């Protein structure tokens, strides 16, 4: 009797395992299929990789200008390299400051004003020639420069340097600096640093006193009474200024290079930048882009959205639009629609790819952006400036 029952139950168990396996595979297939329905099928797209189509660029740009676009589209690119007065071709960051543009390069700070470039280096008082990040205080007009050798306050021509040796700065390698009222925040190789310009006091946040995995921090931004720190391996660390409390947002899937469950949180723990605007936090990683509206997370990848590449160096949100610097060009998005700017490998031309809903249109442009490996971007009024690993680009809003 007992043997009969065991045999019967073992058959049921085997059947159950097979059923569950088939069901799980079906679930995976369904998930993939659903996911693919959310983005574009390649065969519907008009691809303009063929150089023979380049002569059509003028007509296409005109068409774009006439069209109504949900997000701004930039064109009429003008590129600058060391041949045009930049101290070096490698530009890490760019910031529009009134009538001038500040560019952080590997060879110093370059300032573009009235059509001319002027360079400032350590000889002028800069902490280090490698300028990785720039922000301008809205309160005081002071320019804060995060360099590879310390933090520099550039105020009306005067360079004042804060280093890990002469101040409470956590580390001399500063990947990101922002001004938030009277406070200055830095993301450094030795933790996040907070400098109160009123009290002149420093605070350091590392894995010792904040929910970080490592002391390395790559990005920092402010918004909604909070500071959002992109912490290497630690996702996003949120600091509420009022309560002085931390919380972290990490990838629920763990430190994996695939997003197992979509939109369950930040897409990866290795974050490279944060930017907050219009109630949305945008998070850059080397494995995709995330957006957090305070309640829900949304992930974006090159395979399921218009994102040019999952490898994101920098993100800046301006109003509803995020500008995403990737290794394969610049992407811009409002979360639904996309515009990408890329450059051809073999010449100075490139294309602007516009994705609205299920439609994808590409337009040739010449010249295009300076290089596809984009590192920094800033936008103001009708102008966009882009820092790349080979030069700086200036674009204008197409009407």
């Amino acid at each position: 009797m007992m043997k009969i029952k065991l045999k019967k139950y073992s058959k049921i168990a085997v059947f159950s395992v097979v059923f569950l396996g088939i069901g799980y595979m079906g679930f995976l297939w369904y998930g993939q299929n659903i996911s693919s329905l959310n983005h574009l099928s390649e065969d519907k797209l008009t691809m303009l990789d063929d150089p023979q189509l380049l002569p059509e660029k003028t007509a296409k740009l005109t068409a774009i200008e006439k069209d109504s676009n949900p997000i701004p589209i930039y064109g009429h690119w003008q590129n600058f390299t060391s041949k045009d007065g930049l101290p070096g071709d490698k530009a890490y960051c760019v910031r529009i400051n009134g009538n001038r543009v500040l560019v952080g390069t590997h060879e110093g700070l370059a300032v573009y004003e009235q059509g001319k470039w002027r360079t400032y280096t350590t000889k002028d008082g800069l902490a280090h020639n490698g300028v990785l990040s720039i922000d301008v205080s809205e309160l005081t007009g002071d320019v804060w420069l995060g360099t590879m050798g310390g933090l520099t306050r550039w105020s009306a021509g005067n360079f004042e340097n804060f280093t890990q040796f002469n101040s409470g700065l956590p580390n001399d390698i500063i990947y990101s600096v922002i001004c938030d009222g009277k406070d200055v925040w830095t993301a450094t190789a030795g933790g996040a640093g907070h400098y109160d310009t009123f009290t002149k006091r420093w605070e350091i946040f590392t894995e010792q006193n904040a929910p970080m995995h490592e002391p390395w921090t790559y990005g920092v931004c402010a918004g909604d009474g909070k500071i959002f720190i992109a912490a290497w391996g630690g996702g996003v660390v949120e600091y509420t200024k009022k309560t002085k409390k931390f919380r972290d947002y990490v990838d629920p899937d763990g430190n994996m290079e695939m997003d197992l469950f979509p939109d369950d949180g930040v897409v990866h723990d290795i974050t490279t930048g944060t930017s907050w605007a219009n109630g949305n936090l945008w998070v850059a990683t080397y494995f995709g882009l995330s957006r957090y509206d305070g309640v829900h997370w949304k992930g974006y990848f090159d395979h399921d959205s218009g994102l040019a590449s999952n490898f994101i160096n920098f993100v800046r949100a301006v109003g509803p639009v995020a500008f995403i610097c990737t290794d394969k060009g610049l992407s811009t998005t409002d979360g639904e629609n996309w515009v990408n700017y890329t450059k051809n490998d073999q010449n100075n031309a490139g294309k602007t790819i516009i994705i609205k809903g299920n439609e994808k249109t590409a337009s040739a442009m010449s010249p295009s952006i300076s290089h596809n490996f984009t590192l920094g971007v800033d936008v103001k009024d009708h102008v966009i400036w882009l820092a790349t690993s080979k030069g700086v680009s200036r674009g204008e809003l197409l009407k």
Partner: protein
Amino acid sequence: MKTSDKLMIFGLIFMVGLLVYFPGRKVARMHVNSKTAVDDHPLSCISCHLYTRKEEVISKMINADYYSPFNLAVSNNGTRLYVIAQDADALLVVDAENNKVLHKINVGIHPHSVILNRAGKMAYISNQWSDNVSVIDLASSKVIDTLKTGNGPAGLALSANEQFLYAVNAFSSNLSVIDLSSKKEIKRLTTGNNPTGTALSPNGKVLYVTSRRANPAPYGEPLSSDMTLVNDKTQTVMNRTSIESAYIMENVAFTPSGDLAIMTLIRPKNLIPSLQVERGWMNTHGIGIIEQKEGGRVIQLLIDEPNSYYPDPFDIVISPDGKTAFVSSSGVNVISVIDIDAVRTLMAESSPEMLKRFSNNLGISSLFVTKRIATGANPKGLALSPDGKLLYVAEQLEDKITVINTESLEIISAIDLGGPNRITVARQGRRLFNNASHTFQNQYACYSCHPDMHEDGLNYNLAAAGRNIVNVISLREIGDTPPYKWNGKNQSIYKQDGMRFSRFLTRTETFNYDDLDALVAYVKRGIKYPPNLMHNPNGELTESQLRGKALFYRSEDNLGHVIPENNRCITCHPPPYYSNLKLADVGTLAKTDDSIYFDTPHLNNIYASPPYLHDGRAETLEEIWTIYGLEDKHGYVNDMTKIQLNDLVDYLKSLRDPEFYQNNSNNQQQALYYKSN
């Protein structure tokens, strides 16, 4: 009692007296000699044992409450003076027609400056030791508001539209911009180092802010100080004009036409041995002139003379016709009168090279200084009547306002503010401290290198060329922290300020002993610390400072190893002075130094005394350990994380005046608590 008995008793007493007198006198002589380092100082017990007492009752008995007028303003109709009584924490309203004090209005602690609004109905007073500005309704003579500022507000100015008040924060080196409608500080702009004076250009476009301390620079490099230019419309810093080889720019004024901005300044010669004072050039004193046009020149002219110096220029005012400037040379009790047209001519006729030479020319003042008007002790703030016919001089250590006729350039009256008539010993000492008459050719006063009785931030070469480069130390409350001098060679202030001082530094007759007694009494007891409002306003430490305190008192390193007792912070720097008053080797002896130990400095208000170490090599507290403490000889610190070092520095910056720790028994208990935890 029989006469013989009386004689017997008297004789006995006399004999005992003789027996006590001679050895007693010998002991007293030895004691006084050891304290004064001379063998002929009068055996006057009260010199040390009365005038330097700090018990409250005795202190009140031997001292007096002076007003010490510091700055002043004149009403629009010229009938009222508004005088800052710095030591009385008050604003005095003075009837300028009848020379009478009408009201004494209590304001914050240690007020610095006063300005009036354009209508003349409101006065703003910066309270330097309260970190705020008192707003006074002049009709009712009442304080109607108190506005929060940065640390150590000094000079004040109103924006051209009078909607904003600018307060120059001398201690935190920035400028508070206060919205007068919301009564809130809306921003702080970084200025030069230790700013005090400010003035808005006549066209209302640019605010000038002076600085007193020079920008940090290694010894040997030329120093410079910043004049910060602020755009009044955007309220952002538009320029920082570097004033080369100069510092202590106390105040600045514009000509009415706005063609020139003129500030007072000192050109120190700290790179040459200070022993060479008899050869001239310890300090030179003058004015800086900034042309207000595109590409305008920055010129410096000395107001000294070849054999007579006019140190510590403080305030400057310019007559309504723009032809005459008056400078208070506070170190020699003189108002220097400057012919501005002569200065304009000199500038017009001189090449840039010539002007550069003039900045060091002691004779050039004969071309533009037209008169020296002697005043009472320590002239500071100046103000002109609206018609420019009268010049009012705040005589800080005279408690008077001197009135000068600007046409005849003669003193016509003095307004007694009603302070004590007697001059106490400490007051006399303060006068001596501020006066350069005891220095060869009046080159400098004690105050010159110790402005505000603190320190000027510079390093001086006190021995032969290149030997013993030392940073100036603060004199605040040093009375109980012997020995003195960087190497602790002076066991008392008597020795420090007595014979050695005149022999090595002033190169003149030494102080007579009455004056030396007075100077020592003042230095020992008369110089107070400002409250540490920036880092420790109420005595309660922040979390970071508490962690830093634990590190300061720790006996074990991060790995649990015992730190040798002589390498713990607390061993050499115990409260209340945070000095064990002993000598130590902290591994920072320079090759050019005599081979000696260093006096362990007190750490009270140490945040206010950069640069650090005996020769000022460390620009910040952090550098003491990050750059100059790599061998762990100056405390055991190299196991600390950066967060811990920040905490330690944060705690050090929180240290206050010694009295706080003497009165706070919790400190030792807290120390024990942290030690045991």
